[in-house]
């Protein structure tokens, strides 16, 4: 009986690995997408692309580690296009040598120079602003600077997710670029002292904690508010309790990070991959991003979703994205040094 089972298991293993062994031998006119962007989010964009061009998109999604996977797969990698979130990851992918240059007038026309690599190794597809969620009832300020969050008047009133999360380290990295390391340390220490509780949860939980009265103000990305207001009925009250303020650095603008893409170095379907990349910054795809996920399109002239429009006008900070990527490690170490994740009073 057991022998029998084992033999069957072995046969089906053989069969299964035969079916899956050669992902790079997929049919012609297809493109292999390694994405750190959530499947539900990019699905409409990809489906529209497949419909328009007849090119099939094969997907593998993981938030982290895709770069290491591409590197490990090396010259045999089936990866064509890498889509990810956070400029640091794109810069790192280029540094790891797993990307190659895209020269496409279409993409260069759509993506402003500030939001792409000077050598064409990576490009932004959307902008994601790190903003302030403020209690509609308990916060009267209409404008605020990131620096002011260190003010003792916020003692016990701020909420935030894990300080090591990329959304936060990228903001802190921009802070280092703006203020210099020693001042940034002081700033983060004061923000930590102002926290209402130990960092945890996600950005939505920040809105929830404000709605419940645990804190008055917190950090979050804009699109979560759009999602909660329009698509998540049970979380609508959380978003309704907060107001979005576009904070700025003193003498600067609002911190934005990007989502973006890069062409894999050994892309077997290079032409199709570039087609997909061009599609990602097309009017149609950019409009989908704005409406589906409430992000800021990278391409000029694409209307924002009315929910986001209502937040006011956002002026992105001028700190170059590469400086943010450069300071990321310093920012992460600063989080450790300050003991940010231990919460207030620890």
């Amino acid at each position, binding site marked *: *009986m*057991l*022998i029998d089972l*084992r033999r069957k*298991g*072995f046969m089906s*293993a053989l069969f*299964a*690995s035969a079916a*899956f*062994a*050669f*992902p*790079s*031998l997929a049919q012609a006119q297809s493109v*292999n997408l390694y994405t750190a962007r*959530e499947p*539900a*989010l990019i699905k409409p964009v990809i489906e529209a692309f497949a419909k328009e061009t007849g090119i099939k998109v094969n*997907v*593998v999604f*993981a938030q*982290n*580690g895709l770069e*290491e*996977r591409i*590197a*490990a*797969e*090396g*010259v*045999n990698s*089936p990866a064509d296009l890498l889509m990810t979130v956070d400029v*640091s990851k794109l810069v790192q992918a280029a540094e790891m040598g797993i990307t190659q240059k895209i020269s496409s007038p279409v993409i260069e026309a759509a993506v402003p120079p500030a939001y792409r690599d000077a050598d064409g190794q990576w490009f932004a597809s959307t902008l994601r602003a790190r903003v302030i969620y403020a209690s509609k009832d308990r916060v009267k300020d209409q404008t605020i600077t990131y620096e002011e969050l260190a003010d003792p008047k916020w003692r016990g009133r701020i909420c935030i997710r*894990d300080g*090591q*999360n990329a959304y936060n*380290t990228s903001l802190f990295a921009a802070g280092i670029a703006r203020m210099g390391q020693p001042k940034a340390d002081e700033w983060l220490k004061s923000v930590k002292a102002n926290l209402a*509780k*130990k*960092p*945890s*949860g996600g950005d939505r939980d920040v809105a*929830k*904690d404000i*709605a*419940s*009265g645990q804190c008055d103000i917190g950090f979050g990305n804009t699109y*979560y508010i759009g*999602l909660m207001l329009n698509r998540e009925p*049970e979380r609508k009250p*959380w978003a309704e309790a907060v107001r979005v303020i576009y904070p700025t650095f003193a003498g600067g603008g609002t911190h934005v990070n990007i989502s973006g893409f890069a062409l894999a170095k050994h892309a*077997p379907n290079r032409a199709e991959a570039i087609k997909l990349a061009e599609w990602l910054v097309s009017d149609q795809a950019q409009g989908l991003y704005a409406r589906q996920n409430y992000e800021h399109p990278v391409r000029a002239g694409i209307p924002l979703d009315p929910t986001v429009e209502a937040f006011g006008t956002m002026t992105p900070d001028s700190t170059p994205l590469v400086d943010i990527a450069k300071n990321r*490690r310093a920012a*992460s*170490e600063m989080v*450790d*040094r300050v*003991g940010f994740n*231990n919460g207030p009073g620890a």
Partner: protein
Amino acid sequence: MTIATGQRRETGGAFRWSARFTAWDAAAAAVAGLVLLPILVVAAIGLGGSLDLAGHTTRYILPAALLETGLLVMGVVALSVLIGVGAGWLVAIYRFPGRDVLGWALILPFAIPTYISAYAYVEALDYFGPVQGLLRLGFGFASRRDYWFPEIRSMPGAIVVYALVLYPYIYIASRAAFSLQGAQMIDAARSLGCSRLSALRRVVLPAVIPMLAAGATLVVLETLNDIGASQYLGINTLTVAVYATWLSKGDLAGASQIALVTLAAIFALLWLERRALRNRQTRIASRGYRPVSAPRLSGWRGIGAMLAVSLPVLLGFVLPFGSLLQHAIRQLANDGLAQDLIQALGNSLLAATLATLVVLGLALLLAFAGRFTRLQRIRTANRLAGLGYALPGTVLVIGLLPALGFVDWLANGLIIALGLPRAGLILSGSIAAIVLAYTIRFLAIGLEQVEAGLATISRNTDFAAHTLGCPERPLAWRILAPALKPVAAGAAILIFVDCLKELPATLLLRPLNFETLATQLYGHASRGSFEDGAVAALLIVLAGLAPLVILNRMMQR
């Protein structure tokens, strides 16, 4: 998985040394090498990296992470032991209303992955959840600041969440231990004038400690392996630190160094466990022993026992399962059953089944190798082959990716040298990679069970077969393997459920367009909209429940 742990050392006979290298040696060495491979790769990455950050890591990251991990692990073990031993004791020794159903239901939380439970708990106990809602309604509070309520996203919250899904490891072990020997020992102790409770404390507990320790070890390893729940609940464990160093600092070498510290701590723990228990044996009670009295608890004591045993079932299973069910029904009503979910279910079952078969096959092979050769070096190799279970999934992937890539590179080099076209990836990004990862991670479960089961079969069987001229192979397959069927089935179930729940390795090793239930759920959860993954989560739990029911029937036999 530890029902029979500790009995292994029962079969007497010293292990011996022999210079002859046999096929058994080759098999044992190959499997141990396979399991050690990712560990060695991680070590190489860690040691190859600059130690610049070591100052930062040792100063700012490790102390905090070690402290939080230590607190979490100790809390979870203490609470799991309290629940598991308490429930195991009541169910094994007493009769009270609802005992049969509850004794069975107590293992159900095992089917719930920690991260699912964490989400459900935050939802239930947070401000907008039903509990606080009722409080506000009842007392007329207007805001969270008007009253005190325990924070679920905290260390105590995390301890409770983890213990409520991990206690079955202790419960299964302690119930089996108590029912095997508890009654007999208690009868003996009582005949000497002990009360039942003091018999528990003075006679039974010390005797079953090896089995409990093995269960506790699993609780520790499961706690360390988790990343989803601890990150969400804001607990900065060593595994979270590995992640943060890898991702936030872009420092894979530094992450590997922290992973090595974690592994060192785990190995120290395993070594201490073995050492401390070396001379403590769980004696198997004589089969067929019937206790003099199976005391019936009646009246308020019966009700009390029933309530006490219901509590872990309610909190560990009914609450998270109910929350899942509610979301799943809503989602099904809105969107129907998505086609890709059925596909994902198929993929999950396929990968878990393949891995279970491979693990069982290897476990039998290694166990027979140990039994037939009685060589110390094979015994050592088998212990090494069990180390994969101590490897957090994230660390396993870090180690496995370069190894798989290297094998593919070699294979393609060979293929091209033969004048054939490049084949591309063969192992990486195929289902074989996932099965390999599951095998490395869960081989320990199969091995422990099969070895323990084998140990209960007297060696006289082997000698008799030998005398009758029956060689090793037919002895193994025709005589020993069939006798191991129940044990192998029990192990298979545990491995299968663990494979279904596994996330980090599946996520990074899976082929293009290949989703399992766990990766589907992750796709939704990583967007922060956990409830959209409710159907996938429910299917994981349901697919894990069926085998648990079978396991329970076997336990009762």
